[in-house]
């Protein structure tokens, strides 16, 4: 169908209108949000029964935020903490602010938590003393009676003279830390001669949204500085002039804030420099301002399409994905170069001025889109977002070039202002000469490149691949320092790993936990880890309560409590038979139960519980030992992510091979076997060499270096298509050089990113494009089905 340029414009405007309406609809129905949540950026998404509950657990961890308010005088520190809490409560997006505990758990309240259930609770050690013949239960009972400073025996002996309950409660339910509770409920600690008061809070749901994060952190910044100082003027008598209140804060939101600030800065700088470089390149090539406007228009349209794609497929987009998406500028500008160069030499009366390059442009889009589309296979959200943004953006650029540029061609003079003589002195001419020189000895160059590729493969064989997700992004040293300092101050020893158990009923879940505890107690005795926190350790299942009571009754009958009875003045040690059970619904409302509530979760009709660990020394042994448990999963997010990133790295390598084969098939069908071989081998070799150079420069390689391969292949195939379609000429040299330079600028600029993942991606693509551009003209030396060949 031959449409006039005006009809094409109308067609473009119609689809634009439809897309604009569609965009408005999406924006109203499901507006996209931008976040800077680093913790979820490189995590792998699963769709199994554990995913939803793990997300809940992660969300809870990520929303925690704390302040330590310090001063040499505790009274001043407490007053400052109170002031801080008051102001924090005023901030939108901050909730559950707590500087002072209201219901402080004490020994009596712990004992009361088990009131009425005293003789159905046994520790594993107490059970061991009762059942093992070589152990005397009296030894354990005497230890309890004789324990220095013990209070529990005196408070529980009337209800349970066997001292089983006393032994049960002679443990700390609190995780290990260095906090002390003041009489009025403030959690305090001493550090370097200062008293610090702990103020905890949570960020509200959705606080990782870019705007909310920024708003919360800037409000927090304002609190820390002058406001508090003025509110403390009433304490000037006790506040030495030379000592300020020390505020130490940590939480995921600060990392997100820094990440978003850095990403936004990079977007501005890298994006700005990329556009500037591209525009200079256009002006240098065409010496016409109109070409600048056309290219800016094209880039603008492609960005709009990119965002439309993101809106269609994602509810939430990470800001770091947008930094990656800067690459769209360089690739979208290619279409502008190809068409502008063509339009320079085509008469304005021509009905289809881009007829000669239509196929090249469409093929070029298809190969690039295919390359990015394959990135979607990798189940890491950042890759999906980059792919969707780029594919939609390029599609927008392509249809704009095909439908709008012919109309513009009729209205605007695109002819170059550079005279023929000047043209002969331009970079394009010189590059063309260099290419000509290379083509004269193309076999030698080919041999050299193949040798270099083999050498690169040897280097790559010895290169270490890093799958540590934390090394993919840069965390400000100051934040890390503060986090480590806070951990040291609090004496926190809880590890990130945990065991997640699932069951359909609370009792079944407790029984599952009890099975796990048998394994865990053995592992703890073998020092695989220091300690753990589990609900079943403080709340036995009904079946376990029955077993415990039965054991106490049988031990009494066997006379195991007689020695204790004598010590107590021949008072009979009575064991009452069980008549009702301690249930989760009751226990979680008790003072001790509240401490464990965060370990117990419900999702749909299933119950989940977490067992947390402290001081893990051998995570592999722990993980292996727990793998025998049914309905349980050992969660080691960092290690799991590392393992999965390693797998995806291999998947990405296979995808690259698949993309090469796909490219080969397309080339084979259009250009024949020899050109297809060369079309694929050139970018593949360029990629191998670029990877090897990156490995030498970086010291290791990551998933992002490998991801660069698809972009190198896609762009390399583009260059080959133009040479295969149009042969070797100064015009094609100009087009491909412009195209390569625009991409080179963008990716080279990207390699200066402060985010290691982006920098390594940019660096490898940059090196790869330089090499593919240098070698692409060899395509014209190979005979094939179509196109023009350079003279041999």
């Amino acid at each position, binding site marked *: 169908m031959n449409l006039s340029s005006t009809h094409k414009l109308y067609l473009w405007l119609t689809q634009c209108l439809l897309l604009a309406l569609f965009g408005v609809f999406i924006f109203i129905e499901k507006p996209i949000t931008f976040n800077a949540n680093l913790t979820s950026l490189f995590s792998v998404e699963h769709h199994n029964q554990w995913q939803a509950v793990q997300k809940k657990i992660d969300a809870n961890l990520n929303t925690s935020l704390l302040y330590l308010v310090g001063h040499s005088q505790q009274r001043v520190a407490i007053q400052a903490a109170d002031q801080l809490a008051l102001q924090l409560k005023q901030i939108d997006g901050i909730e559950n602010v707590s500087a002072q505990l209201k219901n402080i758990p004490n020994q009596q309240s712990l004992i009361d938590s088990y009131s009425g259930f005293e003789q159905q609770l046994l520790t594993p050690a107490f059970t061991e003393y009762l059942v093992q013949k070589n152990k005397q239960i009296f030894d354990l009972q005497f230890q309890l*009676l*004789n324990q220095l400073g013990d209070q529990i025996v005196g408070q529980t002996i009337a209800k349970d003279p066997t001292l089983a309950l006393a032994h049960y409660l002679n*443990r*700390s339910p609190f995780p290990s830390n260095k906090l*002390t*509770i003041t009489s009025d409920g403030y959690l305090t600690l001493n550090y370097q001669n200062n008293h610090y008061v702990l103020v905890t809070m949570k960020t509200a749901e959705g606080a990782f949204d870019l705007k909310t994060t920024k708003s919360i952190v800037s409000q927090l910044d304002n609190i820390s500085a002058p406001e508090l100082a003025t509110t403390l003027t009433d304490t000037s008598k006790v506040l030495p002039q030379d000592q300020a209140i020390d505020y130490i804060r940590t939480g995921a939101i600060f990392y997100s804030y820094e990440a978003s600030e850095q990403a936004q800065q990079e977007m501005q700088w890298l994006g700005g420099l990329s556009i500037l470089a591209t525009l200079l390149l256009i002006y240098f090539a065409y010496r016409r301002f109109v070409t600048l406007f056309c290219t800016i228009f094209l880039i603008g349209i492609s960005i709009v399409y990119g965002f439309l794609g993101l809106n269609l497929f994602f509810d939430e987009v990470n800001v770091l994905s947008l930094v990656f998406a800067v690459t769209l500028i360089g690739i979208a500008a290619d279409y502008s170069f190809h068409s502008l160069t063509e339009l320079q030499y085509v008469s304005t009366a021509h009905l289809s001025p881009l007829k000669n390059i239509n196929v090249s442009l469409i093929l070029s889009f298809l190969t690039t889109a295919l390359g990015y589309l394959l990135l979607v296979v990798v189940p890491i959200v950042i890759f999906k977002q980059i792919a969707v943004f780029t594919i939609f953006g390029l599609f927008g650029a392509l249809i704009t070039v095909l439908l709008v540029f012919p109309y513009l061609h009729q209205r605007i003079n695109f002819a170059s202002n550079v005279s023929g003589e000047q043209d002969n002195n331009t970079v394009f001419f010189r590059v063309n000469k260099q290419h000509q020189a290379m083509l004269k000895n193309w076999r030698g160059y080919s041999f050299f490149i193949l040798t270099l590729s083999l050498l690169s493969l040897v280097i790559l064989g010895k290169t270490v691949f890093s799958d540590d997700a934390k090394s993919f992004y840069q965390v400000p040293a100051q934040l890390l320092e503060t986090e480590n300092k806070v951990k040291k101050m609090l004496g926190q020893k809880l590890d990130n790993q945990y065991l997640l158990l699932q069951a359909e009923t609370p009792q079944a879940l407790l029984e599952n936990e009890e099975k796990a505890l048998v394994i865990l107690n053995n592992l703890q005795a073998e020092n695989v880890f220091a300690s753990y926190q589990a609900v079943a350790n403080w709340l036995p299942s009904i079946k376990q309560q029955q077993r415990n009571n039965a054991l106490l009754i049988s031990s009494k009958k066997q006379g195991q409590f007689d020695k204790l009875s004598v010590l107590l003045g021949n008072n009979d040690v009575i064991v009452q038979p069980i008549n009702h059970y301690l249930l989760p619904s009751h226990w979680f409302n008790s003072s001790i139960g509240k401490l464990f509530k965060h370990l117990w979760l419900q999702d749909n009709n299933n119950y989940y519980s977490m067992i947390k660990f402290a001081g893990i020394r051998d995570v592999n042994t722990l993980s292996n030992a727990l793998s025998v448990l049914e309905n349980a999963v050992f969660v080691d997010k960092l290690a799991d992510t590392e393992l999965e990133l390693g797998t995806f790295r291999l998947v990405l390598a296979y995808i690259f091979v698949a993309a090469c084969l796909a490219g080969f098939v397309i080339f084979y069908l259009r250009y024949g076997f020899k050109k297809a071989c060369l079309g694929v081998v050139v970018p593949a070799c360029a990629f191998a060499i670029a990877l090897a150079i990156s490995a030498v420069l970086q010291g290791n390689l990551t998933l992002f270096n490998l991801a660069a391969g698809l972009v190198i292949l896609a762009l390399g195939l583009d260059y080959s298509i133009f040479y295969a379609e149009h042969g070797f000429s100064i015009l094609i040299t100009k087009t491909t050089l412009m195209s390569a330079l625009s991409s080179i600028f963008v990716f080279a600029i990207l390699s200066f990113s402060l985010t290691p993942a982006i920098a390594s991606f940019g660096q490898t693509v940059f090196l790869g494009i330089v090499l593919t551009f240098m070698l692409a003209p060899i395509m014209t030396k190979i005979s094939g089905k179509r196109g023009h060949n350079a003279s041999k």
Partner: protein
Amino acid sequence: MTVLLRFLLSVLFVFSVQVWANDSSEVSHNEKKTSINSHKNKQTDTDANISDPNIRLERFLARLQIKQGIASFTQQKHLSFLANPIVSKGILKIYQNSIIWQVQSPVFSKLVIVGDQVWQWMAQEDNNAPNYQVVVSNASVETLIRAVFTGDISQSQWNISMDEQQCLQLSPNDLVLSQAINYINVCVSDNQSQRFVTIRDAQDNLTEIELMITTKQLSDEDIHEFVINP
């Protein structure tokens, strides 16, 4: 509670080994035995000249700093629900900031405080390597242990008072400890190798402990006992 226990252990040992803190004085260990009274008087005179009670206290606590030693103890526990006190005997060892509280009779038990953790000795079936388990860890006690050894007991956490008989009274400000202890009284006899510690708990039970310092040197074997290698 073991929280309390850790505190008590540290306080007990501090006072039991106070004499070692005087190593830097001109008087040798043997000489001390014969001139304890004069030494004490000299010390009291010096302290009496200091009008600021805080400085007096600081000086007293500074003398508590010790490196290592062993003391034997006898403990009598008067529990309100027992007609007769529970009597036990054992030894207390200290090495740097670590403490071992070992009851030897009538029933063996052993607690080791290393760093900020309390380890309980667990009986082994095969009597091979000793097995320890963490029983509790609490910052208030950790802070106190460090404070006592550095002579810097936080007055915001503890009410501290001293009497003329060189007895120190501590009553806790810390909520957790105050739920367990009313007060602790530590006295030093004329013979400085003996210490008497009285603990009155929140339920009015009384624990009396008599400590006798036996040595200020630990053998390699003793030091090895502090190595908990979990």
